[in-house]
């Protein structure tokens, strides 16, 4: 076993740290306050190669591993604890990589270079007003007419709605829709690369709304209605009616990066807290750090953080075995449990860490000036369930442990 990162992984981590210290750290509060990531920061990240980490060089990417992708997301999240920038980064690495795995050559050559260059956004559009976890129950419908797919339906709680309309090239999502029949089920879903804005032009039949969320405002969340929205056949991702399975693999990949973001942000919270604990004095000049109760809690939280981190990197390592190395004996399904563990553990650990850190800061933690709350509220979006509800992760784990037949009663 080898629990060390390789030299190139360490060099890459250092390069992302240096970049983030230089360009992200000075801006993260402003991004969170103004609810916007400035385009010139996105361009800088693109120029640094951060949007194409796992994408192959053929499509303009860096040809790196998924472990390296997780490293980049973790480090960016450390310098952007409110995580909007880290999430922008992870979505535009994870879902384009899923496109590379399943999409058509035409779609890949057209879309991927534009994501890598920072000009386009490519995320996930699965959730609908009537449900997110229940992917089999989606109602957006895609019908083929005269060689073109016509889509009708509504998606909600989608990241990047505003960004898609504002970026120079545009972009869109890895979107899942029912094909053939609207019945509840797994075998009548197809995945599409839906690009409501492309080549700078907004297409007909796309009606977006932006929501006002309680946190992580730097990256927009919104919904959109598709009204006879046309999608060319080349944008079908993977096989017809196999979209459910493709998107689940995509979710596995994205969830690894979500865990990495939560770990990075929580790491910042602990580091910031330790500075506070070392310097804050009370009860006759006694340092906060000298109280054993605080020490006990710190040690427990650190253990949880390191555990979440290990889960994250193990899942990333496995993703590389399956998708990059295509190693013998490794199967996409093998990723289900390691990812569920990481996605279950990391956001909840981040939430617990932030809660405790805020308490240590006392009244100061409750002020905007301390900035700690931004990370709490940002990572909480993942405890609520973005990119995969926490209880669904539990069901996945329990079902695998007990066996499918035994979880039905």
């Amino acid at each position, binding site marked *: 076993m080898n629990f060390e990162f390789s*030299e*190139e992984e360490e*060099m890459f981590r250092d*390069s992302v740290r240096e*970049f983030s210290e230089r360009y992200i750290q000075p801006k993260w509060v402003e991004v969170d306050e103004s609810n916007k990531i400035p385009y010139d920061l996105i361009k800088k990240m693109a120029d*640094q*190669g951060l949007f194409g980490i796992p994408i192959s*060089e053929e499509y303009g990417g*860096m040809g790196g591993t998924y472990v390296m992708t997780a490293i980049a997301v973790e480090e960016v999240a450390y310098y952007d604890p409110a995580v909007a920038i880290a999430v922008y980064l992870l979505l535009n690495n994870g879902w384009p990589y899923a496109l590379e795995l399943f999409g058509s050559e035409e779609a890949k050559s057209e879309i991927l270079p534009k994501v890598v260059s920072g000009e386009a956004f490519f995320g996930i559009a699965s959730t609908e007003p009537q449900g997110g976890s229940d992917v089999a129950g989606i109602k957006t419908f895609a019908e083929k007419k005269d060689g073109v797919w016509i889509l009708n339906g509504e998606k909600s709680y989608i990241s990047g709605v505003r960004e898609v309309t504002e970026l120079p090239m545009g972009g869109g999502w890895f979107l899942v829709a029912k094909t053939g029949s609207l019945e509840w089920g797994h075998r009548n879903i197809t995945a599409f690369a839906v690009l409501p804005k492309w080549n700078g032009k907004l297409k007909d039949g796309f009606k977006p709304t932006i929501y006002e969320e309680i946190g992580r405002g730097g990256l927009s969340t919104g919904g959109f209605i598709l009204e006879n929205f046309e999608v060319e056949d080349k944008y079908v991702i993977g096989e017809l009616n196999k979209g459910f399975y493709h998107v689940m693999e995509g979710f596995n990949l994205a969830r690894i990066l979500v865990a990495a973001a939560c770990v990075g942000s929580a790491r910042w919270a602990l580091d910031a807290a330790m500075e506070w604990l070392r310097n804050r004095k009370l009860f006759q000049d006694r340092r906060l750090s000298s109280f054993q109760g605080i020490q006990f809690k710190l040690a427990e939280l650190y253990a949880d953080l390191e555990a979440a981190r290990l889960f994250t990197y193990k899942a990333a390592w496995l993703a590389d075995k399956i998708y990059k190395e295509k190693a013998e004996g490794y199967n996409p399904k093998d990723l289900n449990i390691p990812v569920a563990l990481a996605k279950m553990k990391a956001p909840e650990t981040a939430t617990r860490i932030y809660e405790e850190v805020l308490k240590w800061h006392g009244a100061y933690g409750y002020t905007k000036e301390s900035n700690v709350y931004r990370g709490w509220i940002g990572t909480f979006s993942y405890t609520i369930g973005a990119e995969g509800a926490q209880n669904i992760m539990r069901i996945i784990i329990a079902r695998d442990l007990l066996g499918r037949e035994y979880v039905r009663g």
Partner: protein
Amino acid sequence: MKILVPIKLSLDTSQIKFDESTGEPIYEAIPKKISDADKCAIEEALKIKDKYQGAVTVVTIGSTKDHYRMLRDAYAMGVDEAYLIKYDSPEYIPANQVANIIKSFFEKHGPYDVILMGQWSNDTHSSSLQGMLSSLLNYPLMPNVDKLDFDGTFFIGSSNMEDGTYTFKAKPPLIISVSTEANLPRIPTLKDILRAKKMPINELNISDYIESIGKLDIVKVSRYVVERLRNIIKIESEDDVAKAIDMIVNVLKGEGLI
């Protein structure tokens, strides 16, 4: 244009820790990294290479994993050749011997049109190596440059010394030292890092570059405590504010400034 950049692995002085009882630095706990000014020197050399034809060589003295990593980082930035002159404790070699080693290297592997180096290292700030190389090689020195320009023929550098601004203009061959104000060094991309993995670190025997090596007789290193009065008033009430103001005013009066 052949450019030589001698670089030094220094203690990261932003992370200095002293042992409370002995007063000595806890060396194992202090990370090492390339001197900031040396990194700026590499960046300046690469800027010349980007614009005009050129080859950039870096050389350092050392033997640890950190030295190899420093050279690998230099490759990731874009240098063409990296050399490691092997020696276990380079920090004890007197600076003028380091200069002689670099001179030998220069003669064996050069000649180089320009030696670009950092103004000083992070840990010693001696700034003596540049002068030594200048007199050993008899090359003019353009020192402590904050802004360097090259038009293909002439180098123009401006430096901010204590007494004012100096602007230097000279043709190669010459030695240029740069400050950390000169540029913001490039951050290698993942592709650069993966490519650097394949580049060779050329190991050299120090005995081929110098006959005998001395050792600085360092008796002790300790925290430098500046003697100051340290009369501190902590504001906890309005009265304290008045006290503090009075204290400051009295000092100013005492020095004849009010």
